[in-house]
């Protein structure tokens, strides 16, 4: 598996800050992985994301050491313009990134900035619209849309740039439960169809464990856990770092400790119930 992201001994301290926001951090992510980044608020997640999309060191001052490579190129040595074509970023609140008069214009915005020729722009915008199933709203004004639709438009704008790595910052936190599930399914589908890699910052793991390959947990700027969802959620340490172990997984974890159920994989509510039924029968 090719590596799309390599973070090597990265440390960053904001000017005048007493502590490093990111401290001797190492992480490799392979092409088309879905990786969840978790950890207590203030642990350095947002800073880490900024080192991947280049805002650090290009737009923020501070002490920077180590290296971040995206698709083999060092972020420090790449321009924001080049990075924008490899790394896409979806903010928590889509209103921070959609602002044009029509959905279509909004999706084209990033491409216009790069000076992509019009026929190519047309092709990419249409492709993004069809991938996200938003053809019916392409001529509407973004501010008239529901939050779930706005989220899709913002994601379409990111996809039109054809990034190989997409960073999602708490993408489901403002969405109703059904819309949140649809977004998670969409992430899984885009990975499958386009081979896109996703790094998702998320506290609500109940939705994401179904599709994630790995969970990386940060604390005080350092990486403290890194493994499959099963390994991380079943570890003793997970609770101490504020990892939100989904409630049915908590039940499974406790029953497994007492030897009543296996812990080789994470069971859904229905699976766990049927296992307990069979035991009882």
């Amino acid at each position, binding site marked *: 598996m090719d590596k799309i992201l390599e973070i090597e001994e990265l440390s960053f301290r904001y000017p005048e800050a007493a502590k490093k926001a990111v401290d001797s951090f190492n992480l490799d992510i392979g092409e088309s992985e879905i990786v969840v980044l978790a950890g207590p608020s203030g642990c350095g997640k947002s800073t880490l994301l900024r080192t991947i999309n280049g805002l650090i060191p290009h737009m923020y001052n501070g002490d920077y050491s180590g290296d971040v490579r995206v698709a083999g190129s060092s972020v420090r040595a790449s321009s924001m313009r080049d990075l924008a074509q490899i790394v896409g970023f979806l903010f928590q609140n889509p209103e921070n990134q959609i602002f044009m008069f029509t959905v279509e214009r909004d999706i084209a915005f990033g491409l216009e900035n790069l000076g992509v020729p019009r026929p190519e722009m047309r092709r990419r915008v249409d492709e993004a619209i069809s991938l996200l199933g938003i053809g019916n709203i392409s001529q509407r004004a973004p501010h008239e849309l529901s939050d779930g639709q706005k989220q899709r438009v913002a994601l379409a704008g990111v996809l039109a740039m054809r990034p190989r790595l997409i960073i999602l910052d708490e993408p489901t936190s403002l969405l109703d*439960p*059904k819309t949140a599930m649809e977004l998670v399914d969409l992430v899984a589908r885009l990975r499958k169809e386009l081979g896109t890699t996703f790094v998702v910052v998320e506290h609500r793991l109940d939705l994401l464990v179904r599709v994630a390959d790995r969970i990386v947990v940060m604390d005080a700027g350092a990486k403290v856990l890194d493994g499959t969802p099963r390994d991380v959620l079943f570890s003793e340490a997970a609770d101490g770092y504020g990892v939100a172990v989904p409630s049915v997984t908590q039940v499974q974890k406790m029953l497994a400790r007492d030897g009543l159920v296996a812990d080789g994989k994470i069971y859904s509510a229905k699976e766990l119930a049927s296992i307990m039924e069979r035991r009882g029968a």
Partner: protein
Amino acid sequence: MIEFRDVTYIHENGVKALDGITMQMDAGETIAIVGENGAGKTTLIKHVTGLLKPTSGAVLVDGVNTRETSTATLSRKVGIAFQNPDHQLFSESVQEEIAFALKNFGFPPDLVEKRVTWGLQLFGLEEYKESSPLILSGGEKKRLTLACILAWDPEVVILDEPTVGQDAIQKEKLAGTIKMLGSTGKTVVVVSHDIEFLWPLQPRVVVMKSGRIVADGPAPELMTKKEMLESARVAEPQLVSFYQALSRRPESPFVDALEARLWIEEGEASHRGGSAVT
């Protein structure tokens, strides 16, 4: 404490955001408002603070019609933490932010100091007391807005999406705070998509859709109605799915994981006991 009498609210652009809302929220109640994006949840709570006034109908807070009083007067009784904390943080330092409303309401200096210390401790913000609120992380800002509101001890506490940006430990503390507020007779209104957070609080649940209330009742009763929840784009809590998938089960769904574990282990023990006899 709060009464909505046939409240309809129509936005300037003609969209009907609330459509004939009649409901009452009493002192000591914890009420969760859930429903799809755009259902009218935030519009509803803005009526309690007087930020919005009904197009028709009336909202009464502690017997006072919100149309006949000022937002400033209402704010002494109703504290609201908005979805986006950036909309309500503006002071030079974290401690001044907490002190701001207290000073405005004319609290004596020694009490201001006590309440500020209390707020900083309760929400784990002591290390930032001299810092600008702007340097805080998203989750920390949310906690600061909560500290600011609780410091002046309003009768009604409204939280709009309080769990965004909060890790599991902070969420547990927040749940503890909500329970504490409920037990001291406050009316707590929580607007949230985070069903897993709401469920263990066992609140009264109000389900909204297209500006109307489609269901209103205790959590164990409403959160087990899968079809109703899905029509409002709400999912059932994981523990409810688990409970419903069991054929032999207790009378009401498990409130938390520990309760589920104890019930299962008791069953296992009696099962083992039974087989030992035969």
